[in-house]
């Protein structure tokens, strides 16, 4: 970045140095390929059922532990929960053959088993964020491990009515858009392509965050948090090619998950097999994963105890607001 001359006394807002994220103490208890299962011990353990967090494949998991006072993980540990976070890491070209089934059977399921062994708990609360929520639903449907609660934040499940880029979806369905060759050639969908595509779908022009920053240029704490969030916004990771193609064809085009037609390693992913207490959350300002992609799951599962909540905020607001939202604390209190 060019070092522009600054007016004397003006603070340097965008530093070139790397900004640290993830302040909550943690320990890696299992690693596989690029994935890590992190353990965040409770400050004072008060709850029996530990949290097993599954983060998305699109971006980096540090958004769940951005900064002190802006961390959902910190919120859990302060309330007495042991937390296990499955961070898939950053895939490389060599990971091009990883499929959705691999993510479920080779990463999430063994990760959950490790969390159970490590915590010596009888069951788990599985929490999925965004696409991690979609994976959490697939896992919950085939799991042999005891899952007490399943919580989903902005998890896309039903792709029937995606309220944006309708002609692109139609072209994908009818064969007018064929990205498979290029994905195969690259092996993985590059991080820049992921960032560019998602920006086009949500907000191609994004100036207001910079104006907000300009308005609080003397607030060091705000600047630090802004920089950390900006690091996450621009920190997309490559997407394994095989899994991406499956996501496009099996989920976006054929919408197999909500229709109970998805098979992973010859095993049917039947949403009726989900019996855990279910909490599904969507946010009003989420342009990427709107309500119609999230809510239909509630009717499809067998859980007796199921709740759907629509709350204020954007796609990641709940993760960085700091602490736990009141509705979550109340919901978990009676079930952990």
């Amino acid at each position, binding site marked *: 970045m060019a070092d522009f001359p600054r007016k004397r006394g003006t603070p340097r807002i965008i530093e070139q140095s790397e900004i640290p994220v993830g302040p909550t103490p943690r320990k890696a208890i299992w690693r596989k390929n690029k994935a890590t299962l992190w353990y965040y011990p409770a400050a004072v353990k008060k709850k029996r059922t530990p949290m097993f967090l599954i983060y998305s494949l699109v971006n980096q998991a540090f958004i769940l532990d951005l900064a002190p006072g802006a961390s959902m993980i910190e919120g859990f540990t302060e309330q007495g929960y042991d937390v296990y976070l499955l961070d898939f890491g950053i895939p490389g070209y060599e990971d091009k053959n990883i499929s959705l089934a691999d993510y479920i059977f080779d990463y999430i399921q063994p990760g959950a088993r490790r969390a159970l062994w490590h915590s010596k708990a009888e069951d788990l609360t599985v929490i999925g964020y965004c696409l991690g929520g979609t994976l959490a639903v697939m896992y919950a449907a085939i799991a042999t491990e005891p899952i007490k609660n399943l919580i989903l934040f902005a998890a896309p499940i039903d792709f029937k009515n995606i309220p944006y880029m309708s002609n692109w979806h139609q072209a994908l369905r009818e064969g*007018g858009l064929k990205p498979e*060759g290029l994905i195969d050639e690259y092996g993985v969908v590059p991080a820049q392509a992921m960032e560019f595509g998602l920006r086009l*779908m949500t907000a191609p*022009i994004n100036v207001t965050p910079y104006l907000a920053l300009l*308005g609080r240029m003397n607030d060091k704490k705000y600047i630090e948090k802004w920089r950390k969030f900006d690091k996450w916004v621009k920190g997309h990771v490559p997407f394994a090619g095989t899994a991406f193609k499956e996501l496009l064809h099996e989920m976006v085009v054929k919408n197999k998950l909500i229709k109970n037609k998805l098979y992973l390693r010859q095993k049917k992913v039947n949403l009726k097999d989900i019996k855990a207490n279910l909490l599904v959350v969507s946010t009003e300002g989420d342009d990427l994963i709107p309500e119609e992609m999230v809510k239909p799951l509630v009717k499809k599962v067998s859980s007796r105890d199921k709740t759907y909540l629509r709350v204020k905020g954007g796609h990641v607001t709940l993760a960085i607001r700091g602490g736990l939202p009141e509705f979550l604390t109340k919901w978990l209190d009676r079930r952990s």
Partner: protein
Amino acid sequence: MSDKSMKLKDLTRLVANYEKDLNNFIKDKLNDNQVVALANTEMEKHLKKVRFLRRFSEIIAHQFNFPTRDDLANVSRLVMQLEDRLDHIEEMLIQTLGENGSIMEEDLQTIEGEANQQMNREEADLKAGEGEGEKNSLRNRVLETLSQLGKQAVKDSIQDALSQRGNLRG
């Protein structure tokens, strides 16, 4: 509140409104069949170029005896397969230790004790044989080193098993 910050707040509000409209306008324009067709055509052109470059680099790598990206990916996959197997063995071990009540910590300590006694006996035998002369000194040193290594390996593996067991039982 200063006049300057009020102006900035007004500007931010104004920009936010225009930004939303502008973003909706761009998304509308992008959601056009012609744009989709153009994107598909450009993707195919790009694919041809990327494919050509890959084939070209593979020919060069072959001539100069360099490994290609696929060669390295294949090695990585072999490492991943090994990692999978180790992971599987580790899972089985944890499961066995967790399920089998007969393998208790005391049993592991008894095994460690017996191994130590055996090592000590071997050490004593080695020391007793030291007076036999120069010709045995090299043999003795080798045996002693092996004995030390073996002792350490047994100790380490028992320590590992005990610590895993500690994790399981708390």
